[in-house]
Each structure stands twice: as structure tokens, then as C-alpha cells.
């Protein structure tokens, strides 16, 4: 029986080629989109599943409240470690202090590379269950040992066996390679970790970290834990919640609270608003999930519409089959079987499409997804997906077609009733509602990105290059390098800063100043800079003056940004002092000498943070900021800069970033979303139009006789075109009016996340509606005009 169904299905498909192409093509595109989105979601959900202890690992997070605003983050103070080790270890199987992922220069013989990695305590490799390829799991118990990822070991040692060899780090100290671990995959939170070095080393080489041992206020470190087998994250959180406040009086002021954020939540649910976990990337998982479901629905609607539109052709078959003994259920099975065949074919095409487009998609979505050829789970899910789609697309046609009464259809008196087209119309409206909503959504995302991109950023990011200078080699070399670079003609001005211009790395509090409100808990961005900072960035001084090397007292001077002046309530800031409120060992007071324009260092969607730029008297430079010579091309300048750089730092790889590109990275997430949703929208529209095209051709065919009669009676091509197009245009207009409020509601909600956001204008909606109508008219017209131009004599003879 099943073989018979397949045979009929196959003959039906090959007989009606146009119909088959539309149906298969639409379904294949829809399924490909759904498949790709499915793979993407699978990848998102399996983030960190590389780590076998995923369900037991957490990071210690901290919430603190400043002026009624609660901020939450993973940074914790050092003394917490001792507190935990003394009284809380029964909750933890492993506990590991860790540095942030940092970039270090690694050198072996003549090979020098820069790699990112972490300083961690001894148990980290075991907790993460790293796949050790050579050497030992317990590789960082000695203070001068280093564990390398496979790719890093290969880059440094080539074919040599790295174990026991010595790597020079930052031209500063030597470390012995004790282990090589498999590179941690891309879809994990440690994908940048290419080396592990002992935490104790980190402490011993950094004075400030040593000092932080008893500083409860210095939240600059990370702590990862694996909880004991007999406990839960919630119960551990309950125990550690107030540890900091209990041990440190000052923390009460900020209501410091500690909790565990499970590894499962790191990637998808790491957004906090006022101390509450409010999701995060999971939002995009949902968003794309919904898009995928809708695109599939659109394709299924095509299938339903085209199948039922062809009902008159198949009515006779149903009648005959019933008259030779078929039960309705058998017919239903037959039609479902046909839809199964179509869906199966579409799926095969979809797989081809996915395989061909996966590389492009990976690039666009910044993913590293492989097609899961060998995953049984995937194929099982695919089978379920095919069955589901076949049911979704095939059930309505199957029920509808199998309901025909044989007496009527065989007598030839069968006529689809006046309202038989209604479900079809509703489905078309649904399709275009989705498409129009997609159009509006995409346009608004693009607009928001452009709006934020065009926001004045306060400094000149074009022609600005930054070079990382975190290695010891750079200590005390700034003046020399500045002279050399400027003398080379490639650079017109250069400065240092303790953080890149596109980010804030440090925030400070604990200041007093004249007129500071009682109980005000300030939080100021803190960047240490050389005196040329504003000049090199073309950052405008709006009040007072810039730093100057001519005034020795400027070593205790500070520039505020405009927001800081407002934030601190200073009316005449110039000449005022900002003092340290540490009574025992105060730093010297800082004199405000000028106010600079606000510059965007963090998110371009948010207001500029109040900040201070402090004269860097301790050489805390993390970056050189180089203003390239505008008279020459960037590549010329860079060639010269590299030559000069190599003369002075032959052992350090020459690394640089264009600040405008770094700044552009801030839009990457939104741009990805924008581009992806743009593509999905285009495909959704394509699918809807394919369906509409198919429907029009059937309607034109159905009405061949009517069109013939009308033409004999004197109807022009335009009249006929108008008659055929009007029906569909009406449906699309209805869709627009449904889609607009929905899109407005959803997109307005999306925009609320961005304090700096575009205002929704009515013309966006009007434009989307016009666009949808234009596409409809184009699609319908092709068939309508063909029908209208047909020779009435011929079409009437076909009766």
C-alpha cells in the first residue's frame, strides 16, 4: 500500500512540474532556514558542554548597590579566597582563583608569539577536565610551570616535544612546559585560553595583586568553583550570600552580595538588571527560534494552499478511489504520504543548501558550526522534523481532499463553494503578516544600528592606531618611542593610556570634593594617560586647559569629562581638588585643570559614563595611541611604524589595532542580528511570493473560461489584470494592518533596551507596507497579464 502511495505521489510530482518546483523550492528554502537556525540554537545551547563538569561548575558573582543602582558582575576581591578556604570548603569540590584572560608574549628560541590565556590556581585543569595530550593534568602546581594548548605548542615548538622545555614570557620570566592540552573548542567560555600559568606566579610578579590580598574593596579577580556532589547551587548561594558583609564592614554600605552563576547560564543568561538575572543571549535564541518556526510555517502554508487550490483536479481521483472501495482514512494516509514524499525531497535539498551555505553562515554569525553528519541525535531529530513538517503541511489538504463526496465529484457537479477559498485567504494573510512584520523588524534594527553609528563619539577615531604595551619591555620607553615615531614621519602625535580608547577598564570611588552631597556613592571611570592623550585623540578641551609637561604639578592633575562635572555637581570645576578619603594613607589630591568633551568608550547605545583622565605618573600604560600622519597612506605609515618598533622591541610581535575598527566591533552583535534577520526576511518574502505566484497561476487557470468570456465581452488586458490582482492585493493590505501593530509592539520593546535609540517613525511602517504591496503586484502581475493576454477563442474552446 505504501509503495503505491509513493508511486502516485511521484507521478503526481513529475506530472505537475511548475507546481512541484514551487512547492519543493519553497519547502526546501523554509526547511533550510529552519535547519540552519536549529543548528545555531543547538550550538548556543551546547555552549560549554565540552566541560564534563558543566552542571557542577559556577562562577562567583557579586552584586553591589551604588546610589540605589545595583550592579552585578563576576569581579570579586582577593580576601574572599581565604574566607572561603577557612570556613566554606565543604561546599566546594574545587575552588580556583583566576586572572582575566590576558595576552602574553611567549618566546622559545627565535619564535615569539602573542597568546591569550589565564593565570589560575592548581585545580583548574582538573575542574575543567581538560583533554591532556602530553604531560600531566596537575601541570601548574610548581610556580614556574606553564600548560599550553596544542595549537600554541605547535606554533612555538613545531615538531619538537615541548614537555620540559622553557618558554620565556614577556621577556620577563621563564616557565617550563608541563603539559599540552587539546585546544578548548570555540563554543565555550574558555575558547581564548591558550595557556594556563600558576596563580601564585601572577601574584608574585604584580605588586598591586600582592597588595590586594587584604583589600576587600579591590574587585579585580575571578573565582570559579565546582560545587560538592551533595549540594546545589542554590544552597551554596544561600550560604555565601552575605560572607563579604560579615567580614568587611565597608561592604554593608554597598550591600555586597555574593552568589553562584552556574556555568549553564554564563553564555545565555548572564544579563543582570538591578541585581536580577534577566536573561541575555537566550533572547536571541528565542528570537531566531521564532523566526525559524515562522519561516517553516510560511513554507507549509504554500504547500497547503497549492494542494487545496488544485483540489478540483484531484476531486475526481478521490471520487473514483472511494467508489472502488477506499475508506477516508486510506485517502488521508495517501495524501499524507504524498506530503511526506515532498517534505522528504525538500529536506534533502535543504540539507544540500545548508551544507553549501554553512561556511557563509558561520562567518556571518561568528560561529564554528559543522554539519553534524555523524550525530545520531541530529538524524533522529531530522526525522521527527520531517514527520512534523509533513503533518503540518499535509494534514489540512489531506482532510480537505479526502472529504469530497464521490457522487458529486463523479457526476461533475462538484464545485468548490463560494467560501472554499476562505481558509486559503486566511493563510495568505498569515503569510504576509509574518513577512511584513519581518520587513519592519529588519528595517528598525538597521535604523537603530545606523543611528548609533552616526552618534558623535567625541574624538577622532579615523587614523588612530593602538599598540598594546602590557609587556615589561615597554617600561620607561614611552618618551623615546614617541620621539622616534614622530621623527619617522609616520606619526604626528602619540600618547599612552591605561585602557584602550574603546573601553573602560577601571572604576574608582572613595573620593571627596567640595560640595559633595552627603552619602553620595560615586562611581567614576578611571583612566591613566600621558599628557598627550587629548591631543593624540583630537579630544576637545571644553573648559580649562590640557595637561602640559611644562607644569611639573600636572603629575597630580586630572581632566574630567562633561558628564563627570554634572555628575559630581561641580559648578566651577577648574582649580578644584578631588581628594582621597582614605584617612590613613591618602593619595595626593588631584587638581582639576580641565574638562574634556564626552567620548564614547563603552556601549554606543548608552549614555557616556562620568570619567576622569589622570596623569599617568607610575607608567601604567597598557596602550600606545598613535595618530597617524594624514599626509601618507595608512599602510605606508604602518610599515614605518613596524620598522621602528622592531628596532626597539625585536622580540615582541608587532601588534596593532585600528581604533575605528575596534569601535566598529561595538556594533558587531547588532549588525549580525541585523544581517541575519535581513537574510531570513528576504527568504520569508521569497517563500511567500512563491506561494502567491503559484496561487495566482491556479486562479488564472481556474478562471480561464471567465477571462475568455470577459474578453469576448470587451474587457481590456488592464481590466483582467485588475480583476485578478485586486483579490490578492486586498489580502496583503489586510496583512499589513495586522502586522504593523504587532511589529510596533515588539520592536518598541526591543528598543527599550537601548537608552540611546532611534525614534520609530510612521514612514517606516508605510514604507514596509508599500514594499509588500509592490512585491505582491509584481508577483501577481506576471500570471495575471499572461492570463489576460491569452486568446479568448482558445481558452473558450478548452471547455
Amino acid at each position, binding site marked *: *500500500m505504501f509503495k503505491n502511495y509513493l508511486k*502516485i505521489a511521484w*507521478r503526481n510530482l513529475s506530472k505537475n512540474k511548475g507546481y512541484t518546483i514551487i512547492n519543493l523550492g519553497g519547502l526546501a528554502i523554509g526547511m533550510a532556514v529552519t535547519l540552519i537556525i536549529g543548528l545555531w540554537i543547538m550550538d548556543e545551547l551546547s555552549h560549554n558542554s565540552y566541560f564534563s563538569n558543566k552542571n557542577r561548575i559556577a562562577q562567583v558573582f557579586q552584586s553591589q548597590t551604588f546610589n540605589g543602582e545595583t550592579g552585578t558582575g563576576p569581579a570579586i576581591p582577593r580576601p574572599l579566597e581565604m574566607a572561603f578556604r577557612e570556613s566554606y570548603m565543604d561546599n566546594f569540590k574545587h575552588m580556583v582563583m583566576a586572572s582575566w584572560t590576558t595576552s602574553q608574549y611567549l618566546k622559545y628560541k627565535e619564535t615569539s608569539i602573542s597568546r591569550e590565556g589565564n593565570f589560575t590556581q592548581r585545580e583548574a585543569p582538573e575542574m575543567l577536565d581538560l583533554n591532556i595530550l602530553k604531560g600531566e593534568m596537575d601541570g601548574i602546581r610548581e610556580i614556574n610551570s606553564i600548560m599550553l594548548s596544542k595549537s600554541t605548542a605547535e606554533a612555538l615548538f613545531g615538531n619538537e616535544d615541548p614537555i620540559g622545555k622553557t618558554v620565556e614570557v614577556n621577556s620577563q620570566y621563564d616557565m617550563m612546559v608541563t603539559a599540552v592540552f587539546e585546544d578548548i573548542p570555540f563554543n565555550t567560555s574558555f575558547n581564548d585560553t591558550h595557556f594556563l600559568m600558576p596563580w601564585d606566579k601572577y601574584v608574585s610578579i604584580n605588586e598591586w595583586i600582592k597588595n590586594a590580598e587584604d583589600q576587600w574593596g579591590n574587585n579585580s579577580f575571578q573565582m570559579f568553583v565546582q560545587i560538592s556532589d551533595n549540594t546545589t547551587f542554590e544552597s551554596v548561594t544561600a550560604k555565601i550570600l552575605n560572607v563579604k558583609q560579615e567580614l568587611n564592614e565597608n561592604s554593608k554600605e554597598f550591600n555586597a552580595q555574593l552568589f553562584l552563576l552556574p556555568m549553564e547560564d554564563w553564555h545565555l543568561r548572564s544579563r543582570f538588571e538591578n541585581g536580577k538575572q534577566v536573561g541575555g543571549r537566550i533572547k536571541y535564541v528565542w528570537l531566531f527560534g521564532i523566526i525559524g518556526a515562522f519561516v517553516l510555517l510560511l513554507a507549509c502554508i504554500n504547500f497547503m494552499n497549492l494542494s487545496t487550490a488544485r483540489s478540483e483536479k484531484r476531486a475526481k481521483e478521490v471520487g473514483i*478511489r472511494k467508489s*472502488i*472501495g*477506499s475508506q477516508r482514512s486510506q485517502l488521508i494516509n495517501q495524501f499524507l504520504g504524498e506530503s511526506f514524499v515532498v517534505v522528504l525531497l525538500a529536506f534533502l535539498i535543504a540539507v544540500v543548501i545548508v551544507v553549501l551555505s554553512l561556511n557563509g553562515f558561520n562567518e556571518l554569525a561568528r560561529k564554528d558550526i559543522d554539519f553534524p553528519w555523524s550525530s545520531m541525535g541530529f538524524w533522529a531529530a531530522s526525522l521527527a522534523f520531517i514527520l512534523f513538517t509533513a503533518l503540518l503541511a499535509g494534514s489540512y489538504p489531506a482532510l480537505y481532499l479526502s472529504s469530497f463526496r464521490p457522487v458529486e465529484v463523479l457526476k461533475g457537479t462538484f464545485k468548490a463553494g463560494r467560501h472554499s477559498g476562505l481558509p486559503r485567504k486566511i493563510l495568505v494573510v498569515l503569510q504576509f503578516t509574518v513577512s511584513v512584520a519581518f520587513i519592519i523588524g529588519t528595517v528598525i534594527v538597521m535604523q537603530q544600528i545606523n543611528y548609533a553609528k552616526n552618534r558623535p563619539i567625541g574624538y577622532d577615531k579615523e587614523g588612530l592606531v593602538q599598540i598594546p604595551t602590557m609587556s615589561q619591555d615597554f617600561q620607561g620607553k614611552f618618551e623615546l618611542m614617541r620621539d622616534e615615531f614622530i621623527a619617522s614621519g609616520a606619526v604626528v602625535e602619540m600618547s599612552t593610556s591605561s585602557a584602550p580608547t574603546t573601553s573602560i577598564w577601571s572604576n574608582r570611588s572613595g573620593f571627596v570634593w567640595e560640595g559633595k552631597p552627603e552619602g553620595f556613592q560615586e562611581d567614576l571611570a578611571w583612566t591613566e594617560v600621558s599628557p598627550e592623550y587629548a591631543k593624540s585623540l583630537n579630544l576637545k578641551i571644553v573648559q580649562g586647559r590640557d595637561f602640559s609637561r611644562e607644569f611639573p604639578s600636572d603629575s597630580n592633575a586630572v581632566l574630567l569629562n562633561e558628564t563627570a562635572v554634572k555628575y559630581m555637581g561641580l559648578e566651577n570645576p577648574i582649580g578644584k581638588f578631588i581628594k582621597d578619603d582614605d584617612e590613613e594613607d591618602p593619595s595626593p589630591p588631584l587638581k582639576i585643570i580641565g574638562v574634556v568633551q564626552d567620548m564614547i568608550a563603552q556601549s554606543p547605545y548608552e549614555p557616556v559614563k562620568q570619567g576622569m583622565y589622570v596623569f599617568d605618573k607610575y607608567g601604567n600604560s597598557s596602550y600606545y595611541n598613535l595618530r597617524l600622519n594624514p599626509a601618507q597612506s595608512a599602510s605606508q605609515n604602518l610599515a614605518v611604524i613596524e620598522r621602528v618598533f622592531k628596532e626597539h622591541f625585536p622580540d615582541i610581535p608587532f601588534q596593532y589595532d585600528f581604533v575605528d575598527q575596534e569601535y566598529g566591533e561595538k556594533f558587531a552583535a547588532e549588525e549580525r542580528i541585523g544581517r541575519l534577520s535581513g537574510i531570513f526576511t528576504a527568504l520569508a518574502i521569497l517563500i511567500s511570493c512563491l506561494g502567491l505566484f503559484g496561487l495566482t497561476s491556479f486562479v488564472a487557470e481556474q478562471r480561464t473560461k471567465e477571462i475568455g468570456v470577459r474578453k469576448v465581452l470587451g474587457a481590456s488586458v488592464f481590466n483582467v489584470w485588475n480583476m485578478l490582482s485586486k483579490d490578492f492585493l486586498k489580502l496583503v493590505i489586510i496583512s499589513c494592518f495586522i502586522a504593523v501593530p504587532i511589529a510596533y509592539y515588539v520592536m518598541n520593546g526591543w528598543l527599550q533596551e537601548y537608552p540611546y535609540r532611534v525614534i520609530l517613525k510612521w514612514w517606516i511602517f508605510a514604507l514596509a507596507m508599500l514594499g509588500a504591496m509592490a512585491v505582491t503586484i509584481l508577483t501577481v502581475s506576471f500570471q495575471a497579464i499572461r492570463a489576460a493576454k491569452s486568446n479568448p477563442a482558445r481558452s473558450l474552446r478548452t471547455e
Partner: protein
Amino acid sequence: MLLELNNIFKWVTTGGQRIFLLKDINLQVEQGEFISVMGPSGSGKSTLLNVIGMLDTFDEGEYNFMDESVYSLKEKHRANLYKQYIGFVFQSYHLLDDLTVQENLEMPLIYKKVKGSERKAMVADMLDRFNIVGKKDLFPAQLSGGQQQLVGVARALIANPKLILADEPTGNLNSKQGEEIMELFKQLNEEGVTIIQVTHSEKNAEYGSRIINLLDGRMV
């Protein structure tokens, strides 16, 4: 007795008025009969045939097929009964266009859930008996009208029905082809198959052992 209709009424309601398609039909058919139903267009011949063939329902009355009351049967039972005992032959053949002759013949057997090997044998028998072995792989559109109707009759016969219902089986055929089909019916009847045919032609009606005349839904 094969089947029995008692006081069968069938009507449609238009504009609040009942129009009777069948009015008080009483009919008993014995096994082995060959009945011709005659009457002008619109007199209810086809409707009667469809009711007997269970393709159509009735509004009032009693219909017993092999001592089972058709009206009270569930669809599945009715379909079983019908698959087992009834074969249909149509004026316009109503073969499945997408299937070959052989596959058309196979179809009722498939619905009867006959096993594959048995099916093949029965189809081969039937092709043989009707002398259409050479045509088995052709599609209906490749056959003449007479040949198509031959296939139609073969298809009706293949499941060994007790009753064949033929709705103007020769209506679309030329006289020679028509004669052949009627001869075939006669032969089948002699072999014991009960036949009820609807026809306009006096000559074809003569093949029957009994003639029923209908007028405006009533037997006269």
C-alpha cells in the same frame, strides 16, 4: 435475497420545499438477477444506483444488503461490505489517469488488503480473461473508449463482487463497443454475478431479466 429496499425516500430541500429524488422505492433483488433501470433524464436512476451502491445516503426507509441494515452501519463496516460485494462501472469509465491499466486493476485489491503475490495473480488472470495483457502497462489516455470501459469492467470484477452496478456503461461508446460490453455483462450474469444497470437504450435494457422504470423518483 441479495438486497432489499423498503419505502426508500430521498429528497433535497430548496426554498423550504422538498424535492423528491426518490419516492417510496420498494425493490427486492435476488442473487443472479440482471436488472435494467430505465427512465428519462432526472428521473432518479443514477441516484437509485448510488443509494444501492452506498455511495449516497437516503432520508427515509430501510435498506438491507445481505440481511444487514445499511443505514445503521458505521462507515468502516459499510465500506467493508461494499468493498467485498460491490463493483462499480461508470459511463465515463473513471479510471485513475495516473495509473497504468495493471495498477488500476490492482487498486481495489489493495484497498481490500489482498496480499501482493495473490494480487499479482488475480490481476494477471483478469488481464488474460479480458484479453488486455498487451495493454497492461499503458495509461488510460492511451486506450480507446471501448478499451477503457473494458478495463473499467475488469476493475469492477476483480474483487469478485456479488453485485455489479453499471451507470450507463455504454453511454460513451459506439454501438459495436457497446455491444461487446453488454455481451460481457450477459456472460458475467450467466456466471452468477448480479447486475444492475442504468440505461437509456431499449436494446441494452433487453439484456436484463427485469426492467424497472422510474419517473420523477417513483417506480412505475
